[in-house]
């Protein structure tokens, strides 16, 4: 306990270590928050969801915060749903027909046009489909007739696919024609900001028959992380990437260092042929191409994260660290207190676990912390070359999909840069703490 306090006192002398520890704490809290708010099953079903789950989000929309850095805001994505109480909906039943009037007023604040607009109808009826008539009222009071048609139980109206509407709008595409000032020739490429109103008049032919609408305006920004080519919200993968990366990094680092230390201790204690075999395995392991073998395992066997974890740990156990540990164990082995333990008849197991291993912990801890970012990046590397876990949404997967779908060529930098920056922060925070710990625990390096 006392030594722990001394350690914290000492490490607080290093500003980079303090920043690193705060960042790690933040990441851990973020991971816990993620796992609680978006449970595993939900995250996976959302990430594998198709257009039915993500019908309200635009394709490759940038994150909201880019508007902070722009002079003119790009349009945000929003939706109005009468079933959820947006807008006003009145119904009047007389003479066997139900007259429905829906008014959906909305503010449009951007001078840019939206990407797309859609209206999703849901109606209830027994035999005869209701009929709707749609109008848009612009801020100048102008009335644009959108269209009129019968709606089934589920009906989707996409503005961009309406050829007649396009003709009525003087050949402009509906997303643009509705929002631009059609009378002025000069200002045609800018949207007119202001309060618009979507009016829908419906006629249903049965008493309990009614229509609900959901009006979606697909802007160019969505959420705090944007969306990808399949309309999925990138924030899900950004959030779930944290617990996956931390868990993989920590488990792989812990598994590797502890196993390496035990093997080095056993090798040096028994010496002779045991040590010799360990040395030879280390040499063979040194020339095994690490990533190539992981590629083989991923290609031929399984890509699940747990299999990769086992493979990574077993390939790293006999790494370079074993020589460092061995050199130190060789020194410790000769210390008088070990000789004393041997003299009173302590068992091999007792000497290794109670006398050799504790002495190496100052060397082990920095090693462990420095290995965490290595493994966090390794997980991302594996995902980027296509060997990632098939179901989990992770940071590496975002980078891979972004690059694979031309995000860099089309200027959708947010898609690749957001996960990359979070990865960098995660990696650097552990590395900063690890490097400082190394200087505290190994004073030979600290003195210079």
């Amino acid at each position, binding site marked *: 306990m006392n030594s722990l306090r001394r350690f914290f006192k000492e490490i607080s002398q290093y500003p*980079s270590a303090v920043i690193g520890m705060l960042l790690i704490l933040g990441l851990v809290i973020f991971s816990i928050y993620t796992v609680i708010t978006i449970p595993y099953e939900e995250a996976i079903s959302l990430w594998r969801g198709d257009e039915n789950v993500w019908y309200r989000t635009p394709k490759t929309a940038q994150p909201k915060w880019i508007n902070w850095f722009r002079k003119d805001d790009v349009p945000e994505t929003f939706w109005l749903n009468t079933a959820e109480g947006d807008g006003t909906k009145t119904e009047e039943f007389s003479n066997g027909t139900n007259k429905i009037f829906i008014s959906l007023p909305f503010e449009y604040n951007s001078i840019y046009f939206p990407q797309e607009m859609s209206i999703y109808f849901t109606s209830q009826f027994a035999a005869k489909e209701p009929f709707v008539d749609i109008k848009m009222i612009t801020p100048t009071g102008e009335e644009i007739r959108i269209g009129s048609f019968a709606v089934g139980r589920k009906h989707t109206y996409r503005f961009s696919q309406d050829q007649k509407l396009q003709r009525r709008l003087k050949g402009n595409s509906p997303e643009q024609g509705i929002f631009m000032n059609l009378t002025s020739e000069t200002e045609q490429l800018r949207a007119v900001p202001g309060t618009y109103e979507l009016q829908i008049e419906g006629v249903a032919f049965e008493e309990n028959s009614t229509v609900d609408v959901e009006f979606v305006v697909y802007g160019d920004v969505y959420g705090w992380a944007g969306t990808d080519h399949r309309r999925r919200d990138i924030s899900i993968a950004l959030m779930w990437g944290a617990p996956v990366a931390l868990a993989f990094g920590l488990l792989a680092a812990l598994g590797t260092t502890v196993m390496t230390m035990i093997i080095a201790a056993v090798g040096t204690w028994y010496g002779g042929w045991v040590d010799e075999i360990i040395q*030879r395995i280390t*040499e*063979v392991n*040194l*020339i*095994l*191409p*690490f*990533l*190539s*073998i992981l*590629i*083989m*395992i*991923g*290609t*031929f*066997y399984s890509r699940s994260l747990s299999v990769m974890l086992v493979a990574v740990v077993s390939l790293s156990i006999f790494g*370079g660290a074993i020589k460092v540990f061995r050199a130190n164990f060789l020194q410790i082995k000769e210390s008088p207190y070990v000789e004393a333990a041997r003299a009173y008849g302590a068992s091999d197991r007792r000497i290794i676990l109670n006398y050799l291993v504790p002495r190496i912990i100052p060397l082990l801890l920095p090693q462990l912390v*420095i290995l965490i*970012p*290595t493994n966090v*990046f390794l997980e*991302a*590397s594996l995902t*980027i*070359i*296509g*060997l990632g876990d098939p179901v989990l949404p992770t940071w590496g997967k975002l*980078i891979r999909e972004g*690059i694979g779908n031309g995000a*860099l*060529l089309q*200027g959708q*930098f947010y898609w*690749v*840069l957001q996960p*990359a920056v979070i*990865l*960098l922060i995660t*990696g*650097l925070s*552990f*590395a*900063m703490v*690890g*490097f400082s710990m190394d200087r505290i625990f190994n004073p*030979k*390096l600290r003195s*210079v």
Partner: protein
Amino acid sequence: MAESTLESPLPIATPRKEHDSSFIRVAKYMSVRLITMAFTVVLGLYLTILIANMGGYVDQIRRGDIREFVQQQVRNDPGLKSLSAAQRSQIIEDRIANQEKRLGLDKPFAVRSFAFLKNAVTLDLGFAEFITADNGSRMVKNIVLERLPSTLMLFGATNIILFFATLFAALSLSRRYGSWLDRFIIATSPMSAAPAWFYGIFLIVIFAAYLHVLPFGGMVDVPPPNNKVDYALSILKHLTLPALALALNQVAFAIYNNRTFFLIYSSEDYVEMAKAKGLTSRDIERKYILRPTLPTNITNFAFLLIGIWGGAPIFEGVFNWPGLGRTQLVAAGLFDTPVILGTTVIFAYLLAITVFLLDFVYALVDPRVRIGSEGAKS
């Protein structure tokens, strides 16, 4: 200049020893290392083959592929349409057996693994299933050897430049201990935690996607220039970003590491003595500080290089560099077992050669090997 640093101190370090005997000792040490290394490589390759086959799982996939391919072939052959179903299935079975024999699937794995091993060691890796070399050859050997130079150029050239650059930067930095540059290097040394490909993505975003000054990837312009000078310039242009990415990954940490050892050695008594004798600081640095730290620095460099070989597939993948690593990725995507195995074998060889060469340099610079007291343990 670099070579003179390595070799000039030799006669000074052991003036009493006969040149001959030290040569023999180095040769003896190296031949022992060569033999151990050969055993190590063979063992490593066999392990690779075992992992590659993973209990016959690959064979099953390949058998399935062959069956599907042959069935498709027979179904689409108009000449065989008139035959009865039984005759047709007979033809299918015959052709499958032929194909399996061609790919060597009819022998048990234990037998095949040793045949595989012999082929792997002699680089006789058979024929690729899908990938072809640029000259149209399907021999794995040709494919692999064709891609080898570009990988060597990328990693070899860049790393040797980085090694000497960081060595001398660290030497000059150790003179300015505590300066802002020194503290900057210490502060940025954790950057090595992120792999080189990762910085590559940032560099591509900045220089290729945003500024449009350097290419996204590849090795030469398309179409390649005819003129030799233009060709070299084009390669240099494409090499800039990968080299910069490797530098961002290594420089700070390598300088920090080297500088630490220089500082440790510069407080030794014999350095004080040399200073007292009034030797120039240049002589002190070269002969009394750089010389004894060289073995440590070389070992550090060896581990660095080994780490970088391991990451080659993804690094080349990010930069679309037509080397061994990217070929391996493509082969993995196509389940082209011979090529995956071939590239893995070549990487194992490259690692072994790296270790061996560094052992050799180590033997040259570490006096313990030459004098023969305690064989140097790398």
